[in-house]
Each structure stands twice: as C-alpha cells, then as structure tokens.
C-alpha cells in the first residue's frame, strides 16, 4: 500500500472522530478532565488532518497483466 491511500483513509477517520468529539463536548455531561482530554485530542487531529491535506501528492499508476497472469500496478509519470 502506498502512503497516499493510507492518508486518505485516516483523514476520513479523523473527520469522523472530530465529529464524535464535538458531540461529546456539546453533550456537556463529561467530567472536566475527560472534556480537556477530548479537546486536546481534537486539536491534535485537526492539525494532522490539515497537514495531510497540505502535503499530499497525487499518485498515478497503470494496471497491467503480467506474463504469469497476475495483475500489476506500475507507477506512471505524472
């Protein structure tokens, strides 16, 4: 697996987690220490997600059938 797909997947996970954090914080029935933990986690995830978006580079590949019948994805020049 290449780096870019992993980043896209964790970006989605970050967004889902951030929405869960907002819901938990807005529910207002957390104890304060837990609320602060969630908050710090949220800020960390926000920072990571922004960095992923800022640094990603498109990856291009081409699918080919190898002589042995297997399917290969070779890198392509962008």
């Amino acid at each position, binding site marked *: *697996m*290449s780096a*870019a*797909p*992993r*980043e*896209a*997947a964790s*970006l*989605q996970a970050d*967004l889902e987690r*951030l*929405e869960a*954090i*907002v819901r938990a*914080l*807005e529910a*207002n029935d*957390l104890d*304060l220490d837990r*609320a*602060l933990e*969630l*908050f*710090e986690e*949220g*800020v960390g995830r*926000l*920072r990571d*997600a*922004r960095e*992923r*978006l800022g640094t*990603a*580079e*498109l*990856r*291009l*590949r*081409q*699918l080919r*059938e190898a002589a042995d019948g297997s*399917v290969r*994805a070779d890198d*392509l020049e*962008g």
Partner: protein
Amino acid sequence: MTLDLPFAPGPRERPYTVQEVVEGARAVLERVLPPVWVEGEISNFKTYPSGHWYFSLKDPWAQLRCVMFRTDARRVPAQPSDGLKVYARGELSVGTKRGELQLIVRQLLATAEGGFYAVALERARAALEKDGLLDPARKRALPAFPRCVGVVTSPEGAAWNDIVAVARRRWPLVELVLIGARVQGEDAPRELGRALALANRYEGLDVLIVGRGGGSKEDLWAFNDEQVARAVAASRVPTISAVGHEMDVTLTDLVADTRAPTPSAAAEKAVPDRHDVQRQLAALAAHVGAAAGRRVELAGAAQRQTAGRMEIAAGRRVAAVRQVLGEAELLMAAGCASRVAAGRARADRLGAALEALSPLKVLERGFAVARDEAGRVLRRVAEFGPGMPFRLRVADGEVRSRVEAGT
C-alpha cells in the same frame, strides 16, 4: 451431313459454356448499371462462418437475392433480422454458381428512425433490462473518501489527462490507476471488456470510472455494446460512466452506478474537494473550541460556588484550555475565512445557548443559590444576619428560608 434439329446450334454457332453465358450477363449488368439503392424487407437472413451475410429483399411483388460481404457487414452496428425494413445500396450482379440475379450490398440502413444504431441499441437495452441490469435499485453509492480510483479509458486520450488534472486540484490524496483500452473502432468493445475484467481482478480499487471524451455517435458506439455494458454492471466496486456529451445516453451510462457527462465531471464526482474538507475542519475546530470553552467555564462557575480553594485548580485548567484554544484559532485562520466566520458564528450561538443553560445545569447537580429579599446573591457568611429571611433557588424552584438565630 448435319442433323436437322430445330434447337441445335447452326454450323457457325459454337455452343457457349454455361459459365460464359452467366459471366457475360454479369459483365453487362455490372458495366451498365450504376450502384442503386433498393428499399425492401429482409427475409431468409443467414450468416456464414466466413462472416458474409446472405438474405433476400422483398416487397409484395418480387424478391431479390442479396449478399453482403464480411468487410461491409461488420460496419453495420446490428445484425438485421427477418422482417426488418431496410434501404440497401449496392451493385447488381449475377451469382456464378446459381446463375441468380443478386445485389451485392455495400451499405445497409434500417428505415426505422435512427437506423441500425437504434435497432442495435434497443435490442441490447432489452437484453440488459431482461436481466435486471437497468434496475435503479442496483445503483450503489460512491465512497466519500476513495483511496484509489480506477480509470478505464485510452492512455492517449484527453479523458485521462482531464481526470488527472481534476484529481490533482481537488484531492491529491487519491491514487489514480489507469486501465488502458482503445475506446473507438472495431476493437474497442473487446478491449473495453478486457480492461473492465482486469480492473475487477485488482483488489485495490474503491471506485471505477469508464469513459472517453466527446465524439460522434459512431465514435462513442463501443459504449453501447451489450458486452461492455455487462462488464460495467459486473464491477465489484461502484462505477461512474463518463462518455462524451454529444449523444443522449449510452448503455454504459444506464448500467453505471453514477453517470457523468464528461471525464472531468466524473473525476469531480469520484473525489471530494480538499477545500471543502478544509472548511469542514475549520468549522469543526470552531465547534471543538467553543464546546470545550463552555464546558470549562461551566465547571469553573460550579467550582467557584463550592469552594474557593478549587478556584486555583480551575484557573489552571482554564489557562490550559485558553492555550489550546489559541491553537484552534490558528488552525481556523489557516482555513477559508468566510466559512470559518460562519463556523465561529455557529459556535457562538451554541455557546450562548449553553450559557443560558449553564446555571440551571449547575443547580441540577445539587448546588443552590441564596438571594436576599432584594434578589442580591449572598456569597459570604457575613452577609447572613441572625434570623434573616432569604430565598434559596434550587433546580426546580425557590425555597423561602430563614437563618437560625445565633448563627
């Protein structure tokens, strides 16, 4: 001595061979008559392993044998069937073996609206429908954040470059995988089918785009091929069709999970826009900051009411939160300004709502507020005189109270 038979050839007439007569007639016909259009109905249609077609054209009064050779027949988009009304263009000739008049058909047009293309399309559409492949309930949703998008198109075509450009601009986190196939010409249906099958054998794809840039009806015809449509329908991952824009709808469009009018539009449907996600992140940052801030102030207020010594600890926490809030502000500033403003306004509204609720929330948890008869909050022991009446506000109402004498 000569025999005196009435039908025997005379002494200076040698008999022609059959071949000479038939070929002589053919030569006359072919020399004298230019190619003609003939209108009629197909009957006795037969194909031969050689690829040639044999049939008759008939009308109520006569019929004419026809042959269409493989090289001409393969340009006709659908094989005709008996009863089909057509225009046939060709040269009149005589078949040597049978000595029959025949039309060598070079071009065949169905007289129905849209011609053979309409005939072929309708036939394939009916077959796909019969197998349930056009059922809207089959359509699958596209993944919100695909990691890997396959593209079945020509490596030389503009479609691939268009898709690459859109993905690079909108969502460079994705991986694009080209599965090359010729997209027009006689080999296109076979190559498209092979590429689609290859894509299906590759585990990494999350979504598959199939298409090409705009072209004439003939150029786009491969995407109306029944086998191509079936291969699209057989895709393990959701599909987006992107076939030119000069034709109404192709069968590939009907079978795909999502239809886009151009390859660029297909790429836009396939991947999210990072600017939208950045705005979403900014709004989330505002929400997280506002919610956490309210939570901390609420806790601080509650603690101030219980005991002064708690205030120091609460103060430290508030300071910690302020610091993190500062970071959230930076994050927000880096996002899109207008959406951040909207997100912040939403966070403020939320905060205001929470603020209105917060004193009641504190009371819910068992705290009470004491006020004197004038409504001033009583905070210190010194503010309570012996026997003084006061009101105690608890979660669900007020209790009229009095300080015991001697307190």
